[in-house]
């Protein structure tokens, strides 16, 4: 009688579960979250020791936890927003975090991203029995879904939904505002020597698309290509944007001067060369919206 046996097993598991849930405090009832790697992650009801393995993840988690944000016990290097996170224990750079520090913090929830964290390290944490929720933050369209997944894992579904919808609405608003505007041809420079620019699949490319500008390297094969200067001169962008999230004035000065040598560039003729010092356009979080509005102000506001 196999069916009877199965029933018996199910029944005994049920009884066990009931007994367990009576024994343990209601605080620790297990929940199951399925992350983007299709992994079923078992979480306690209210995770109290959270570690975020990328700055954007720390930012979203802190926003969602609100006044409970001290539950974040470890963050990756350069997690500086909201400012309160600067004081949280650092677990090292997100490309290669310190395994021992993470394990020693005894987390009950770790957030990782497919965009930057090492798959090997995530696997290692899981092998050690640490619940890791992996989110995807590779494209602009991933932001809302990553907010929802982080919110669900933190048991903050309602706040997450609100945040995600607000973000999507904000994005739509910018997109609509960009209609009927001139379509400038833009280059976004991330580094000078070697020249690295934003290309296809990068966040900045998505942002330019939303505000209605055209990235002259939108067809690159890699996210951050290294074009030759000759090619830039031949493509002749209308606007040059320099990303300088460190805010180093001397660097900005030098880069602007160097571009100034090429007087035939449209951007130089029309004095359309700008420096962006915030990192909002580089982080897959709701703050991306304010980065976008800065970008569209640069592009369309009359001086």
């Amino acid at each position, binding site marked *: 009688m196999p069916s009877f046996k199965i029933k018996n097993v199910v029944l005994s598991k049920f009884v066990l579960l009931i007994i367990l849930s009576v024994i343990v405090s209601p605080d620790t009832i297990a929940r199951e979250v399925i992350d983007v790697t299709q992994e079923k992650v078992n979480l306690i009801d209210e995770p109290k020791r959270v570690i975020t393995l990328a700055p954007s993840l720390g930012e979203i988690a802190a926003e969602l936890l609100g006044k409970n944000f001290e539950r974040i016990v470890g963050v990756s290097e350069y997690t500086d927003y909201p400012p309160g996170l600067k004081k949280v224990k650092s677990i090292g750079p997100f490309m290669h975090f*310190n395994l021992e520090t993470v394990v020693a913090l005894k987390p009950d929830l770790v957030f990782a991203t*497919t965009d930057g964290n*090492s798959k090997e*390290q995530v696997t*290692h944490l899981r092998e050690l029995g640490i619940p890791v929720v992996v989110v995807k933050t590779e494209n602009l369209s991933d932001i809302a879904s990553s907010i929802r997944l982080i919110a669900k894992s933190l048991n903050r579904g309602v706040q997450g939904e609100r945040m995600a919808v607000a973000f999507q609405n904000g994005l739509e608003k910018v997109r609509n505002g960009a209609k009927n505007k001139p379509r400038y041809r833009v280059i976004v420079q991330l580094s000078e020597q070697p020249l690295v620019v934003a290309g296809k699949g990068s966040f900045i490319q998505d942002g330019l698309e939303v505000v209605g500008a055209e990235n002259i390297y939108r067809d690159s094969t890699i996210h951050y290509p290294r074009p030759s200067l000759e090619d830039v001169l031949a493509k002749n962008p209308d606007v040059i944007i320099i990303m300088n999230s460190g805010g180093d004035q001397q660097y900005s000065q030098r880069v602007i001067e160097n571009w100034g040598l090429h007087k035939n560039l449209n951007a130089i003729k029309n004095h359309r060369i700008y420096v962006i010092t915030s990192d909002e356009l580089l982080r897959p979080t709701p703050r991306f919206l304010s980065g976008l509005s800065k970008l569209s102000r640069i592009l369309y506001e009359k001086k």
Partner: protein
Amino acid sequence: MKKNKLWQIYAVSLLGWIGVFCLALRLGAVANADFSLIQEIRLPRALLASLVGAGLAVAGAALQALFCNPLCDPYTLGISSGAALGAILGTSIGLQWILSGFAGTAFLGALLFAALLYSISFRSSRTSLVLLLTGVMLGFVGNSLVALWMALVDTQGIQSALLWLFGDLSRARLNGTLFLGVGVLLLTFSIWRNWRELDGMLMGEEKALALGIDVVKIRRGIIGNTSILISLCVSAAGMIGFVGLIVPHFVRRLAGSLHFHLIPLCALWGATLLTFADCVSRTVARPYELPVGVITALVGAPVFLLILLGRRGSL
């Protein structure tokens, strides 16, 4: 060398390794570690460092003798480039096998390069120089292909997938490390079995031939064994420089050039040096881990130079 003194050297070497091993269990990124942390993180890691250090030093010693070239190290033969190529291609097509700490596709790439080298060793029956140059060429080709791939294709995660290749012991798992342990011991043993022939090779191939050594056969055997050894070490911990180059020289100064003693002592000192260097790399810049290859060089080079300059004429 007197038998008495050799035993002393063995005893000191063994004690040194045990001491460093205990130190590695004691020190880490966090100050007061509980037992489970030591068991789960530090023990596999200290074991991995010891095994990889031993493997690299033995491979270095064997290759230096085989090619009669003091500049040979485990990476001279280009097998590590095969590992890098395997790792990057594996990541690109989404095949990131992580078999208890071993990078699956990296191991396959390394084995492929090793097989190439081995099959070439059948053709170049006359001199080892051809083989050595082939290895160096293989290395260049492999590295260039990796660089080309990174410039033209960028798949998510390639950067982080390749970071470990520059030496990373944090991937250690207990079961994978035990597997590596069996491999390193077996391969070290089968290299050590040829100690007489290795002694002969050190005098040059022609003299070795005159001594009645079947140079071609020995060359094939050593190439086969060392390349599997190197493949294992690289796919477990990436490329860690210096150990395989300097430990054999150091041990030759210490205990002479006879491979009967050289091989086991190299294993011990390689284990000691890498475990100690890893200890330093984990603790000096918390929570960062410094590249362990940098530490092996910074710790090893001065010690080696002191011995080189200080004990003139003992060899």
